[in-house]
């Protein structure tokens, strides 16, 4: 019903809406435990930089120069972590830049250290950078420490409004509209949220909801 990555995508969308009239940049990244090998620190920060640069009218000179330089090397090679870090700082120093990272706990620990240190460096140098992160509670202390305590935290738990929103959507999608009249709908929306608890966990269908109400 409510997943942490939904929260990330909601925040990213809202920031993108804001960015349009505020001349801000938004870059996002979703970590995935099953893709850890394909998500090393350089590729991850490179993907953020790619989005920030993608919103600029021109590719910064520093970046096109770095690209040209590596082409001289036989076979070429990808940009290194420290170069990407520096370029990300340059690209984000001119305007408000939102960096959103989903599931920090699903990043391999050795890469997480490097990423957090790079982000800390960027935060230190660019006052217009804001970082939004999600993850399981066990990485909270590490993030706080690596970012030198400049982090506010919010616990994500389903709220009454989430349950109501979810139920509304499900009721709208109900394939058996005759079975649902407006009184019953109102009853469900009124009753269920008050009973929000782990009691209801597991496979609650609309059919079962009706049984609960009656």
């Amino acid at each position, binding site marked *: 019903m409510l997943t942490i990555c939904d929260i990330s995508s909601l925040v990213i969308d809202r920031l993108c809406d804001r960015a349009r009239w505020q001349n801000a940049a938004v870059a996002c*990244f979703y970590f995935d435990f099953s893709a850890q090998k394909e*998500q090393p620190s350089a590729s991850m920060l*490179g993907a953020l930089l790619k989005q920030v640069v993608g919103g600029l009218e021109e590719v910064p000179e520093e970046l096109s120069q770095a690209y040209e330089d590596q082409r001289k090397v036989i076979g070429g090679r*990808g940009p290194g972590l420290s170069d990407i870090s520096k370029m990300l700082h340059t690209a984000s120093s001119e305007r408000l830049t939102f960096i959103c990272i989903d599931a920090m706990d699903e990043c391999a620990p050795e890469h997480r250290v490097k990423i957090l240190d790079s982000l800390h460096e960027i935060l230190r140098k660019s006052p217009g950078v804001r970082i939004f992160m999600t*993850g399981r*509670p066990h990485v909270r202390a590490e*993030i706080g420490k690596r970012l030198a305590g400049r982090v506010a*935290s*919010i616990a994500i738990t389903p709220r009454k409004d989430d349950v109501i929103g979810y139920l509304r959507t499900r009721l709208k999608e109900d394939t058996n509209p005759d079975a649902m009249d407006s009184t019953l709908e109102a009853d469900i929306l009124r009753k269920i949220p008050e009973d929000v608890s782990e009691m209801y966990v597991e496979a609650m269908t609309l059919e079962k909801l009706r049984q609960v109400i009656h």
Partner: protein
Amino acid sequence: MSQLFSNITHSFNTTVSHNFTIADERSQILAWLSPLEPRLRHQDVRDRRVEEIGEWLLQTEEFRSWCVGNEGGELDNVALFCYGDPGVGKTFIR
């Protein structure tokens, strides 16, 4: 007249191919930065998201003060961490 027309065509072609080169080089540089495409994953997550869920977060004091620009001087909490079980409420109601 035909000379003039030929010149215009010529300059038009030059401009077009010049723009193509720039656009091409730009996408090559961006691809060089990273093979990953997080925007695709974002599209995927957002398409499955239920409307209105999580809106409360955007109204919290922590979120609001975090996303305001740099108005009112130095901001202490430049980062915001939202924590929980990844599937919080996921199995709550199906």
